[in-house]
Every structure is written in C-alpha cells, then in structure tokens.
C-alpha cells in the first residue's frame, strides 16, 4: 500500500532546463525513503515541490488525499521540513523560535509543545539563549524541533547532515531513528550513502531529473546500491 503520499508524473522546468522529468512514486505511512543522487539531479527541487516552496510545471502530489494545488493549507499542515538552513531567527531565543512557529500552526498550547520539543532535542537548558549563539549542531537539533512543532505526518529532510560534525550527525541519526519508530513518513535527500541508509525502509536514486531506481531497503545491500548509483550517475550525461 502506497496511499499516504502519491507523486504522479512530476515535471519541473527552469527556463528551458528540465530539473524533473516525470517523477512518479508512492509512499505508505511509516515509510522512510532515502533518496540519493549527485548534485543537480533534482533532489532539492523534488523536495521543494513536495514542501510547497517550489511550484511544479506539471504533475500531481497528494498527502492523505489532500492535493497540493487544491488544498495547500491542509497539505502544509501535514509537513515538517529540515534543510541545511535552520529557518530559525538568530535574534530570538530557542524557546521564542519554537513558540512562534507552534503559534503559526494554531496549536492549543504552543509554549507547552515548545518546551516538550526542547527536552526531546536536549536543548531545554539553553531555552533562553539566542539562536545566534548556538553551534551548527545545536541549530540543527533546534531545527529538528522546529520541524516537529506541528506533529507532521510527513517529514522532509534536505541534506540534513550538511556541515554537521560527527557528534551532531550521530545525534541526528538517533533522532531520525526515533522518528521512524513513531510511524512518521520521512523522505531524506542526500548524496551520502552512509547517512542515508541508516534508517531507510526504501531507497531511491534520482539522476538527471528521473527517478531511476526505487526499491525496499531490505532488498538492497550497500554494494548493489553503490553499483546502481555509479551506473546512473555515470550515465547522467547521456540522460
């Protein structure tokens, strides 16, 4: 069953350049898709479209039956996004940032949600510190908390390990494993096979705007994935 997220025949063109060429796939609730691809493969564009920040040239996306173009507000309520940009205000404290974002989603008790999430990402002792004073790892942890304020059913992660040191990356991996255990559907976009494979239940390869490979994680070992990746990445120029 792949009825939680449906992406159908998605195309995106930027002034004649085709970033996505008919991407189609589906995910079931609780799926954890790791999407690999070289730079320029269209990974961030795909995530941008699913996250509603980029408009598709054509194609259709639905989450739990909510269509992206017909019901954008309902669609957005299902989403959480973590990217290599924190989307956090440096001049505000960690608590203020989370309360602000939680309030935008009209939660009943934004402060309670913010405090709970700060405990989850182990930043509660620093709740009154300004984000501008945080390290890259702390920002990324707070960014995870920000993405979870609306308890999203679909979490999108765009190169979340970018710029993280080993400790911060290990903590993020731990948090992603926890998300997986909570039956959230997750899409992680990365070009790093090691990070991407850790929690995945499905793996995909995007090359030259096409989804050229998609398989359940338990049917793919690292060697096969590497071989597929190299085959398609090297074939990019001909695609």
């Amino acid at each position: 069953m792949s009825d939680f997220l449906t992406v159908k025949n998605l195309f995106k063109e930027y002034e004649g350049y085709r970033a996505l060429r008919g991407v189609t796939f589906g995910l079931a609730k609780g799926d954890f898709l790791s999407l690999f691809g070289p730079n320029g493969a269209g990974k961030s564009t795909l995530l941008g479209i699913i996250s509603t920040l980029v408009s598709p040239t054509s194609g259709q996306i639905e989450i739990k039956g909510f269509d992206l173009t017909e019901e954008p507000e309902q669609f957005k309520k299902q989403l959480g996004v973590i990217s290599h940009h924190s989307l956090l205000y440096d001049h505000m404290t960690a608590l203020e940032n989370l309360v602000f974002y939680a309030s935008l989603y009209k939660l009943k008790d934004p402060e309670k949600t913010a405090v709970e999430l700060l405990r989850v990402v182990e930043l509660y002792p620093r709740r009154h510190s300004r984000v501008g004073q945080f390290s890259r790892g702390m920002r990324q942890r707070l960014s995870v908390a920000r993405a979870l304020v609306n308890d999203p059913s679909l979490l999108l992660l765009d190169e979340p390990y970018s710029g993280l040191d080993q400790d911060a990356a290990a903590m993020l991996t731990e948090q992603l494993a926890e998300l997986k255990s909570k039956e959230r559907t997750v899409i992680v976009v990365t070009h790093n096979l090691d990070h991407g494979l850790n929690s995945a239940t499905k793996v995909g390869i995007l090359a030259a705007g096409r989804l050229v490979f998609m398989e359940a994680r338990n049917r793919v070992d690292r060697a096969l994935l590497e071989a597929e990746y190299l085959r398609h990445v090297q074939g990019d120029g001909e695609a």
Partner: protein
Amino acid sequence: MSGFWLILQKDLYAEFRRPESVIGMVFFGFLLLVILNLAIPLGSEISPETGAGILWVTITVSSILGLSRTMSRERENRCMDGLLLSPVSVEALFAAKMAVNVVLVLLAECSIIPLFFILYGDGFFTSLPMLVLVVVLANVGFAAIGTLFSAITAGTSRNEALLPLLFYPLVIPLISITVKVTSMIFQGAAVADYSSWLYVMIAYGCIFTGLGFLLLDHVVGE
C-alpha cells in the same frame, strides 16, 4: 492569534529589542533636517510649499532605511521559507509586513515631525488632525510599495542599493500629492480644497496594497 498578529508581534518585538530601523531612520531624518536648515539664510522664512517639500524629502529618504529591513530580516537562515511552509496565508504575511513598516515609519515620524516644527517654525503648525491623516495615508502608500519591493530585492545580494532604485520612481506621484496637500494644510486651507487629493492618496494606497496581495506569492516563491 492569527498569522498576521503573530508576524506583526514578532517583528515589532525584534525592533523593540534591537531598534536598528527606527534609530537609523530618526538619525538620518534629523541629519537631513539640520543640513537643509543650514541652507536657509538666518532670519528668513520659508514658504509652506518649501516647508512641505523639506518635510517629505526627509521622511521618504529616511524611511527607506526601515523599509529594507523588514523583509531582509527574513532572509537570515531562510526564515521566509519557514513562514511559507506554515499554513499562514501570503496575504496575512504581506499585510503583517506592511503594518510593521507603517508602524516603524510612524515611530520615526513621531521624532522627525516635531523637530521639523522646531527648526522651521511653528507657523506651519495649523491643523494637527489633518496632518496626522496625511501622514498615515502617505505611510500606507510608502509601506505598500516598500514592502512589495523589499520582498523583491531581499532575494538579491545588493538589496539595499536596489530598493531605492525601484521604490522612488513609484512613490514620486504619491510624494508630489503629499507635498501639495501638506503645503495646503500649512497654509491653513479648508479641507474641501484638498479633499480630492486625499481620495487620490487613499486610492494609491489601495492599489499598491492590492498589488502586493496579488504579487507577493510570485515574488517570495521559489
């Protein structure tokens, strides 16, 4: 609380915490008023037209400092994406940013206008309610155009240089009407004499506010 109020509250709180925009506008406005005052021979009086011109040149030139800040603040860490990802409508976002600009320019004017009367004579101080009305209408027009163009230029690397180039040509008609109405207020003219200009100012504000609502989604998207 709606998205509009949340964004308005956040931005005003940020300004209250670090009042860069208002202090910048007030300081620049003071400087302009003093420099222009030095050009007037001692003991001579200026006409209401010149007075109105000096006042609005000062306000429009200094207000650009504040207008560019409201959207560029959302640029850091791509916070604009965070707002666009939330279920807040683009209309609420534009209205909140515009309201922030109106409030910030008004705050700066609360210091600039009294200094104008101190430096250029209280003979111009004829009708405070009408002057306040003109100031508010002009601010709405400035804020609508400024918010839209600061959203466009916020995505560029030279936004503070680009914004005046786009902003001033579009506000020139509004400035000229505002100067005309203000000079008539300074002369003590009856409201009926300039009420038609007030309607034009209202229309100007409505048109650019409407344009902002229509275009912001395209401007900040992608």
